[in-house]
């Protein structure tokens, strides 16, 4: 069904029908001081000039780098079918008309997404998606509070710091969030401290939910079954934060007793993008179906016995339950959920296993190369395709590696400035698109930097050119 903006005479007709002279009158109830005023936007520019300026800005992006950055967002190869199919105009809105059932195609796409993700995560119910992994994790925590009627949640400090920030925002209204420390040293260093978890569960207010990640922020594998067992013994629900591609080779949340799973769906066919849009995955057991926020689509038969898709359990939602809805922050990411569905369907179960396994193999190759270059792993425990390395003056080394065309992951001090143990560490990852050549380039550059050798002149010059100018774009001359 086509969608188009309102033309001026559409607006006129609506205003006449409402008996008002301008759209502004509709906002008369909002006090003047609460309205956005004086947006500081530049004047319009001719399209060609604007396009030249944007191209010049885009040219400052470095696309020449060998990237080892993950930290929650991962590069993968995407079958061209994904982006091609997304170009169809029918998909360009997440919204369905009232009645939504008239949009059978949109409902089917959501149903397929929910079914595919349910299979991957091995839980019964999947929502039609949320803003991103952090928002989905926060909704999972709120679900635990509603289901248990308790008001305290424990989150592992090995969960992504941005996710913990979002949790703090959601919990600002009076719910309590406590962090479970990470083991400092020994074989389990960098994973959730189980003894501390037991203490936190035993002391203080009863706990609604325990949140841990698999793999965790440091790329390490957590003892998920054990964390779940401790949570359940205290009457709390267990929330697992997952990276979806890893589920092709790691045990899924449903197999180790998670009640709720949340995660970032970006690795499923969505390109890394600064600030998103991304895709929040949220799934739960059937027992929690009335607590899961957002849309659910079910399959049924119509009066003629034909297959039909319907919005189901809508009564939990904000258009009906208003302030008592399961959530009032549940606009879904239908286009990106569709991208994930097409990605999973085209890659297939065997393909997804190859993606995850090849990433792990590349990461093992990377570990060996970096250790030989003088940067051993920070933690001893098992990982999948991301790990931390020990590098003195990590931030400075990271900068020098950039000058040599290597994006050496994330300086952990930038993510966790208050953790002295992470001051000299980089978090690096590899996926199936990482090449041996890139790994060798990283290792050679790292060896040079650690040895204090200056970068080769030509390389530095090329790097500087790319950042300052806009090769191929005559913007300087034109303006």
């Amino acid at each position: 069904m086509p969608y188009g903006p309102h033309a001026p005479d559409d607006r006129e007709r609506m205003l006449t029908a409402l008996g008002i002279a301008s759209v502004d009158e509709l906002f008369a109830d909002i006090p003047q001081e609460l309205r956005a005023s004086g947006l500081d936007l530049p004047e319009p520019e001719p399209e060609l000039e604007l396009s030249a300026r944007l191209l010049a800005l885009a040219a400052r992006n470095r696309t020449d780098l060998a990237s080892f950055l993950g930290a929650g967002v991962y590069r993968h190869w995407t079958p061209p079918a994904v982006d091609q199919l997304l170009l169809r105009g029918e998909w360009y809105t997440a919204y369905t008309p009232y009645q939504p059932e008239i949009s059978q195609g949109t409902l089917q796409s959501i149903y397929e997404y929910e079914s595919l993700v349910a299979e991957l995560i091995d839980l019964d119910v999947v929502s039609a998606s949320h803003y991103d992994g952090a928002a989905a994790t926060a909704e999972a925590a709120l679900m635990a509070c509603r289901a248990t009627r308790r008001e305290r949640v424990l989150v592992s400090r090995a969960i992504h710091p941005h996710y913990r920030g979002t949790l703090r925002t959601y919990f600002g209204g009076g719910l309590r969030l406590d962090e479970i420390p990470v083991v400092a040293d020994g074989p389990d260093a960098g994973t959730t401290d189980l003894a501390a978890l037991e203490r936190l569960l035993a002391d203080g207010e009863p706990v609604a939910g325990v949140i841990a990640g698999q793999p965790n922020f440091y790329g390490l594998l957590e003892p998920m079954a054990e964390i779940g067992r401790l949570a359940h013994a205290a009457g709390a629900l267990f929330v697992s934060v997952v990276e979806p591609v890893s589920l092709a080779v790691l045990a899924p949340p449903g197999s180790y007793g998670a009640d709720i799973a949340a995660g970032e769906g970006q690795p499923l066919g969505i390109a890394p993008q600064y600030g998103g849009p991304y895709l929040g995955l949220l799934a739960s057991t059937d027992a929690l179906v009335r607590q899961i926020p957002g849309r659910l689509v079910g399959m049924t038969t119509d009066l003629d016995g034909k297959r039909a898709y319907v919005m189901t359990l809508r009564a939990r939602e904000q258009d009906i339950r208003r302030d008592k809805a399961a959530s009032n922050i549940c606009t879904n990411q239908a286009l990106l959920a569709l991208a994930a569905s097409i990605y999973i369907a085209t890659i297939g179960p065997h393909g997804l296993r190859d993606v995850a396994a090849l990433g792990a193999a590349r990461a093992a190759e990377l570990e060996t190369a970096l250790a030989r270059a003088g940067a051993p792993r920070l933690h001893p425990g098992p990982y999948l395709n991301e790990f931390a390395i020990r590098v003195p003056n990590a931030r400075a080394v990271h900068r020098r590696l950039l000058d040599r065309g290597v994006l050496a992951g994330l300086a952990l001090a930038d993510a966790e400035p208050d953790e002295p143990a992470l001051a000299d560490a980089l978090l690096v990852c590899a996926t199936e698109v990482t090449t041996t050549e890139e790994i060798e380039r990283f290792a050679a550059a790292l060896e040079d930097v650690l040895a204090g050798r200056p970068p080769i002149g030509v390389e530095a010059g090329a790097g500087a050119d790319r950042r300052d100018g806009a090769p191929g774009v005559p913007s300087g001359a034109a303006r």
Partner: protein
Amino acid sequence: MVPTDLRYTKDHEWVRVDGDEAVVGITDYATNQLGDIVFVELPDVGRTLSQAGTFGVVESVKAVSDLFSPVSGEVTSGNDALAAAPELVNSDPYGDGWMIRLKLANPTEVDELLDAAAYDALIAEG
């Protein structure tokens, strides 16, 4: 005419006093307004309810509504049959469709509720 041995709230719950306990459900009028009931969320046994406080949620095909306790007291049991057969609330609202039993904290609260005649008058107004 609604059953005369029960007391009623303006929110369409009924209460039947049984010794020092009270049985609570929703009225036939309420079930007609809600339509087919598909889910009833009941409180845990042992939870203390206050008069007019919410004790659960009833979900029909067209709405989700809070349930308000007519009296205060501690929940002694819930109607577990409703988990598998929520339609009992529609078919037998004053019998098998009951929701919770309470240990009455303050029996005089019952006297403040509507009697059958007053409730009949309320629903006649619409």
